[in-house]
């Protein structure tokens, strides 16, 4: 079964890190992606640019409107995701707890819904 691990972080804390700390954090994250790939858990993983790079799109009565910034103003911001294949929710939680950024932020784990025609 597929699960998405949504990584929420306080962007200000992340940007306050020294280059060395940020590099170590990136290296550790990439190493974990690699470990998940080898273990057959990894489907896709990506970091996101900060929320100020977001654009929010809405379509109402066929009319498109866009606004700058993220949809949800939250204390912590979505900083990336890891899409995994896991046996069940407990297995997915085990995987999520080892995401290096779980020590700095929060990881939301949610099962994927298969859409069927």
């Amino acid at each position, binding site marked *: 079964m*597929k699960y*998405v691990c*949504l990584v*929420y972080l306080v962007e200000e804390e992340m940007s306050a890190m020294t280059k060395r700390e940020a*590099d*170590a954090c*990136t*290296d550790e*994250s*990439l190493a974990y992606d690699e470990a998940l790939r080898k273990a057959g858990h990894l*489907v*896709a993983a*990506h*970091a*996101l*640019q900060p*929320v100020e*790079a*977001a*654009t*929010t*799109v*809405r*379509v*109402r009565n066929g009319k*498109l409107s*866009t606004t700058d910034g*993220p*949809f*949800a103003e*939250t204390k*912590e911001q*979505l900083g*990336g*995701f890891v*899409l995994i294949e896991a046996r069940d*929710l407990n297995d997915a*939680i085990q995987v*999520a*707890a080892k995401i290096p950024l*779980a*020590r700095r*932020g*929060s*990881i*939301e*784990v*949610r*099962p*994927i*819904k*298969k*859409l*069927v*025609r």
Partner: protein
Amino acid sequence: MKFMFMIYHDEKTLEALSEGEMQTLVDSALDYDDEIRRSGHYIVSNALQRARTARTIRVRGGKATTTDGPFAETKGQLGGFFLIEAKDMDEACAVAARFPPARLGIIEVRPVRELQHS
């Protein structure tokens, strides 16, 4: 360049749809998947189960704590996501606007950050 679409909608709006209306929405979402696959934009996409099925995990001092429910309580709930390839933000937003369920919710479009080993 890679972009992520985060689809937010009010789950109550979706739950109020009849079975037929819901199936029409699902079919239109799957048609859209096919369409952006053909146009070369598609990388991966997934719908998510309801926010109440989520668990949130934190690790502090080597100890993991798990709580039920999503991390963020928002007016709209994250219902799915797409990862796409587009030339720039304008093209990404134009692709996002074609997603049929955008009529019911909103789509946050965010560029991906490529991580590189130091």
